[in-house]
């Protein structure tokens, strides 16, 4: 079950909101769909992201998938551990598999995110 304290996008990202900081990762559903993650490309700290813009790439053995910014803002941290341990995205998607932290520039963006129940409905219908 998708953790109830997080918010979600239809692109299967989760968002943990803490004041004006959003931590972003991929859901367990996304990680399972991807298969073994072998490479993650993340943006540099300081980069400004528009909502829905691609901010990086996650690669499984067979495929390359874009990552989409759930909220607009400035990248304040990127998970450097994923360079050596990309499998954390599969093994601990809501914990050590986190991708980036963003300082939210438009508070309204967070209102558009799905809650856990809505996300669960999305993946069971899909």
């Amino acid at each position, binding site marked *: 079950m998708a953790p109830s304290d997080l918010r979600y996008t239809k692109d299967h990202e989760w968002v943990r909101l803490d004041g004006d900081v959003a931590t972003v990762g991929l859901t367990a559903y996304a990680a399972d769909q991807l298969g073994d993650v072998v490479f993650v490309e993340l943006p540099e700290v300081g980069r400004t992201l528009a909502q829905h813009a691609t901010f990086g790439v996650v690669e499984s*053995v*067979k495929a390359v998938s874009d990552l989409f910014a759930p909220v607009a803002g400035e990248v304040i941290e990127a998970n450097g551990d994923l360079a050596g341990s990309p499998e954390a995205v599969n093994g601990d998607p809501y914990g050590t598999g986190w991708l980036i932290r963003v300082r939210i520039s438009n508070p309204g963006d967070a209102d558009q995110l799905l809650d856990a129940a809505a996300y669960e409905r999305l993946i069971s219908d899909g």
Partner: protein
Amino acid sequence: MTEQAAMPLRETAIVDAHRALGARLIEFGGWLMPVQYGGILEEHRAVRERAGLFDLSHMGELFVDGPAAGDGLAAAVVSDPRTLAVGRAQYSMICAEDGGVIDDLIIYRLAEDSFLVVANAGNATVVSDTLADRLAGWEAVLDDRSLATSLVAIQGPASVGVLQALTDIDLGGLRYYAIAEGAVAGIPALVARSGYTGEDGFEVFVDWGLGADAWAALERAGRDAGVIPCGLGARDTLRLEAGMPLYGNELDRATNPFEAGLGRVVKLEKPGDFVGRAALARLAERGIEKRLVGLVITGRGIARHGYPVQRDGRATGLVTSGTHSPTIGRPIAMAYVHPDDGEPGTILTVEVRDQAVAAEVVSLPFYRRPR
């Protein structure tokens, strides 16, 4: 989207077992095939460390029999199957008149006048039709049993122990690239010591309807040894590490055997003419315009099919296959490059999403099994 109705996918006789195991099924060569079960990396490692089980029933099995079976095949393919002792096999290719590769094959000699030609799933029909045309006029009969044959492979160092317990064939006496007839779990079978992983292993050919039984027997027998089912995803990462070409990536109609580094398979001096001989002789003399090389990616990024390759900023070729290598722990790739840029040790770059990622040319294979 085209307006044509989609051809329904073929299913192997073993597909229910894959479903029961929770396999992810994909389309491949017109067939519904398992790409993975538990995960590609886990399956890849199982084959390198213990063994894996593969359903390869989508492959083409063409039997050629008759007093002129050897001569007819020799005139149709680039190798000389007549040089095979009974019970031995050779890697080969069937080429067009211009020397372009139609498919790569393994040819097994079952008896003096009897051969089994195994073709790739996506080319089975083309190879069958082409061979039938080329064998016309020879005293030989082609029997395409692709849809009458199931094929289960067990690949990895634990294979011989697992399979020996199920078969009357003395596997100790079966060399690599040899084939024998016998029974596996009581099922009549042809057992070949061959494979597409770079490990020791066996390919077990049985009648179509007995494929599920053969699979179940091998799965049961392999459990204690840690043998697991493996899909096409791991099949691809394994063969790439072993430096083996994939038709559609390294080989196609626009590629000749010499460019692919497979000139040793072409026997220009064999007695009798063969389709493509004149063109291949000219190509052998003229030299190659592109060369297949192995690349280890030393920078950060995964090289994939179609990515451009440069030397000192100048375009030199394209990646044909690439992935993360579980055994080596770095991305690896095969690519066609200008012949001058193909010496092992040459530093090239691969364009990965607008970044030039460093790569080093290495000799193939990337991985050789311990002997």
